[in-house]
């Protein structure tokens, strides 16, 4: 993997879509350069022989941490939670039409 990744404008547009980011043309241009450079840097990992190596997803060694199956009281009220949304009505959060 020592060939520097070339990432096309379409690739960047696709990534933006996957990431739910509606970018301006200017942003797409500069991100195309940046992302190409970053991918070029991280590709050096391809040099490492990792045959037979298990991945490390977490480092605590903790497994299956349980808690009691009981209701935990919260001081936060429904009104407070709804107030965090910029648009709410009738105890509901408003969203644009989905269908």
């Amino acid at each position: 993997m020592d060939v520097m990744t070339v990432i096309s404008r379409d690739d960047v547009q696709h990534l933006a879509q996957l990431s739910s980011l509606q970018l301006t043309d200017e942003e797409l241009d500069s991100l195309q350069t940046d992302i190409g450079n970053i991918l070029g840097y991280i590709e050096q990992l391809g040099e490492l022989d990792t045959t037979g190596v298990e991945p490390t997803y977490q480092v605590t060694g903790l497994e299956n941490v349980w808690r009691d199956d009981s209701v935990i009281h919260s001081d936060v009220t429904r009104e407070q939670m709804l107030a965090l949304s910029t648009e709410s009505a009738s105890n509901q959060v408003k969203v644009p039409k989905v269908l």
Partner: protein
Amino acid sequence: MSRISNIIDQIKSGELTARAAVEAALEKAKSTDEFHALLSVTEARALERADEIDARLQGGENVGRLAGVPFIAKDNFLAFGAPTTAASRMLEKFDAPLQATAVEKLEQEGAICIGKANLDAFAHGGSTENSAFGPTKNAFDQTKVAGGSSGGSAVVTALDVVPFALGTDTGGSIRQPASFNGVVGVKPTYGTVSRYGVVAMASSTDTIGCFTKDIADSELIMDIMSGRDINDMTTLPDFFAPITDLKPGQKIGIIKESMGDAVDPEVRNAVNDYIEKLRAVGHIVEEVHLSMLKYALAMYYIIVPAEVSSNLARYDGIRYGHRAENVATLAELYGRTRDEGFVTENKRRIMIGSYVLSSGYFDAYYQQAQKARTLLVNAYEELFASYDVLLSPTAPTPAFGLGENTADPVQMYLADIMTVPPSLAGLPAISVPAGVSGAGLPIGVQLVGPRRSDANLLALAKSVEGK
């Protein structure tokens, strides 16, 4: 006011009230405004709490180990009294309905939060220049960066606004700004302090720690904050207890790969001076190799963006945070909200994350990085079979100039090259001041130990503190 113990003693003896301590901190915050270290002050709430604590002290009550001590939290900790912005437009008006466990624990001991410190938006960065509200300036030179992402917290500690400040450290965000501003910075073992109520960045390496002027103060703050929290299932049972009888003759490895030509000669000299101090008090320092060091940054910039892309998916403009206006469809609402609410570095990381997690690239990038991480963890374990502590510079240079690295993200990432490896392995790491450069900029050394050896690192640093 610079040390916690001084303030506590003065309050106990009646020389100082909690209100006077808080007023002095607020005054200092105002007079150092030009550094732009703070995004808000929580003046009304802080004074109210101070009066309440003074009344309780007058009544002879034991208020706690930090009665009346003011502090500042990085603005990604949920706290009452001001919005929690994460230095982003996305959360610019977000009033937290609850407080972070770390903040709650400090308040239970009588500490008083007086303000929220600047950071790179969502803690993405190494200079605090990615703040949506403008950069913080270095405490020693206003043309230099504060470091990051916890730049504001480091600067308020260095400027003596408060005796301690809270930060988060995912790949160096406490240690590197501590180094750039000449203060102590502690990143504990992964899982030491609850992250409940702190804006998430990369969940497999996010940690919470502190900035202080000396080691004893860090020991006290970490002792208070550490421990299991039902609201953060990655927290470890409390293991942290300050050590008063450090095992003499500690075996310390200086990592050869961290002292190469790419590292500023003044930084290398400062590390060598620190090594002489360690030897002078009877510790043993030997050169060791960590050949995986050169790959750590590449692993980090795969694993962390992957986790960032997942953690930041929650910012959709619906339930809280910024919401774009005049949109026709749900997709447009998401897309425009996220474009308006995130800074460029947030977008870069989210998109890199989306890339490395895409089918077709997953094995080559994400999976390869997690396997390489195992090799790094193993390399550390091998070294810790023979050594108690590993030593390196905290950063390859003293603070760089404002604007110097903003055009080149990879160059900016390289400032984290020393701090990222212990983060990936979940190891405790601290940065302690080790002199200044010819230009008067602070230099820090980093001490790293096996998991749960946090107290030993602090005790070791204490054995040469001020020498």
